[in-house]
């Protein structure tokens, strides 16, 4: 049995590629002990009291560094954070001592839980709300969190500032770090008909502690324009690999996650995507790191 209250030492993420940990791969990972930098889990999948998920996660955490990624805190909600959920996140952080802890610039609860990362208008009102919530998270959990840029499919006429301006101000007010999801950059830029390169060039890369890569599903908006869906159900697109290199040229090498949450492939396929990201990272290893903040 996993020693639930055995004290683990915090273990920072190496500057390598990791993958999202899926139950389908528990056996292969423990049997094959693959040479991979780290794993990331969705916190909500480990909020049961006990059972196999904690046994496997404990065994894998004892062998690899871990990143804890929340998908349900609803930081962008105008309503108060769910204190019980915050407490569950704090307990998971204490139990597994992840190298990084992250959540999204999004909301997902309004009376009911929508199980999706819903968009936030960018203005003074939402800025105050998100900053207050991040302060509360960091105080409660007792550590810095990283905030992830979202995939968006629409915009709000209420927005008065850009996403980049919003993120910069959040970092300034709260001292949080950033999780740069390069697939989300491509998805949002395509959907908003803006320039992904310009977005990356303006991104405050000195605060980026982690990068995400994933596959998207191409659709259209019914008016003849492409509409990309952040589906996490296929390999990373060539354009996203290219933007990833652009991001690394600015940020220097950063721990990078390959996300594949739907139509999960066999372990060797996912591992190969991580090895490809590792190879890209290795090309930037000698360039040195220009970033300063956001280390666990």
């Amino acid at each position, binding site marked *: 049995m996993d020693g639930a209250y055995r004290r683990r030492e915090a273990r920072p993420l190496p500057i390598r590629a990791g993958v999202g940990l899926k139950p389908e791969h528990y056996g292969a990972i423990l049997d094959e002990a693959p040479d991979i930098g780290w794993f990331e889990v969705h916190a909500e999948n480990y909020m049961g*009291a006990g059972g196999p998920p904690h*046994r496997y996660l404990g065994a894998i955490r004892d062998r690899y560094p871990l990143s804890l990624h929340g*998908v349900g805190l609803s930081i962008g909600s*105008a309503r108060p954070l769910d204190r019980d959920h915050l407490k569950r996140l704090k307990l998971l952080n204490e139990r597994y001592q992840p190298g990084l802890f992250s959540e999204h610039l999004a909301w997902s609860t309004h009376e009911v*839980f*929508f199980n999706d990362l*819903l968009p936030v208008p960018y203005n003074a009102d939402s800025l105050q709300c998100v900053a207050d919530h991040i302060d509360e998270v960091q105080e409660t959990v007792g550590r810095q969190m990283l905030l992830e840029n979202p995939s968006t499919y629409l915009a709000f006429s*209420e927005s008065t500032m850009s996403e980049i301006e919003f993120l910069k101000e959040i970092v300034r007010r709260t001292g949080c770090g950033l999780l740069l999801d390069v697939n989300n950059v491509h998805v949002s830029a395509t959907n908003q008909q803006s320039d992904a390169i310009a977005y990356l060039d303006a991104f405050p890369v000195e605060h980026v502690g982690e990068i995400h890569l994933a596959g998207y599903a191409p659709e259209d908006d019914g008016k003849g324009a492409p509409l990309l869906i952040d589906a996490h159900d296929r390999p990373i697109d060539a354009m996203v690999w290219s933007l990833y290199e652009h991001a690394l040229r600015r940020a220097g090498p950063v721990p990078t996650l390959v996300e594949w949450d739907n139509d999960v492939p066999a372990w060797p396929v996912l591992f190969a995507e991580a090895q490809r990201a590792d190879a890209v990272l290795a090309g930037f290893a000698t360039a040195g790191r220009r970033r300063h903040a956001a280390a666990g």
Partner: protein
Amino acid sequence: MRPLGEVQAAFAAALRNPAIGPPAGVVGPDAGPAPRRFAVYRNNVSVSLANALASAFPVVGRIVGAEFFQAMARTYVVAEPPRSPVLLDYGATFADFIASFAPAASLPYLADVARIERAWREAYHAADAVPLGPADFARIGEAEIPRLTLKLHPSARILRSPYPARTIWTMNAIDGVIEPVDLSLAEDSLIGRPEAEVEVRAVPPGGADFIDALFAGAPLGQSAAAGLAAAREFDIAANLAGLIGAGLVIDLSIAEGGALQ
């Protein structure tokens, strides 16, 4: 400028009720209305929650087929959306919903199969505990046995059904073999996860009443009486051995006399 709470209340209302249409202030890159774009979020909510149910109730899904399951699940998602971001807990009322879902009325056992799956999932995520073995009972004096109270494993669940729910669940599990089944045969099941694997066992006549009495904290003698009252052929020795053998007894004490040792 509307406050954030107002924007989100309108967004949430439109997510939950397609008849409302996209909320005001939601625009595409041309600054015009964006119904197709808003529909992505509505679709994500519906599909992701229905898929969460599909992964929690795989046997129900195999019995009714994917298309029927999706339609049933999406109806449930609208009627009873989750209140917590911990989706491991979502679907506690799905079996009751199935029981009242008219299109599934021709499968009267379906709700009980769903109850087994729900108990399976609860057992999977329940707190861990170390089972007692036969040796732990060897030092109990015969006279003390009726006064013995047993603490059962946190994963243990009883499911009573007027249908052969466990047999149907077993036949429709992965690798199950479908055979004709007599729907008039009632079956009670004991679901538990003493170690890593969830087990679903048949409970002999009277066993469900016996175990429910143990759950309620009744001592062994009183619990056996409950089993006997339910079924004349109730066999206390076989039922107790079955429970211990299943690894679902985690502690024992002597009623009135305080804790053992």
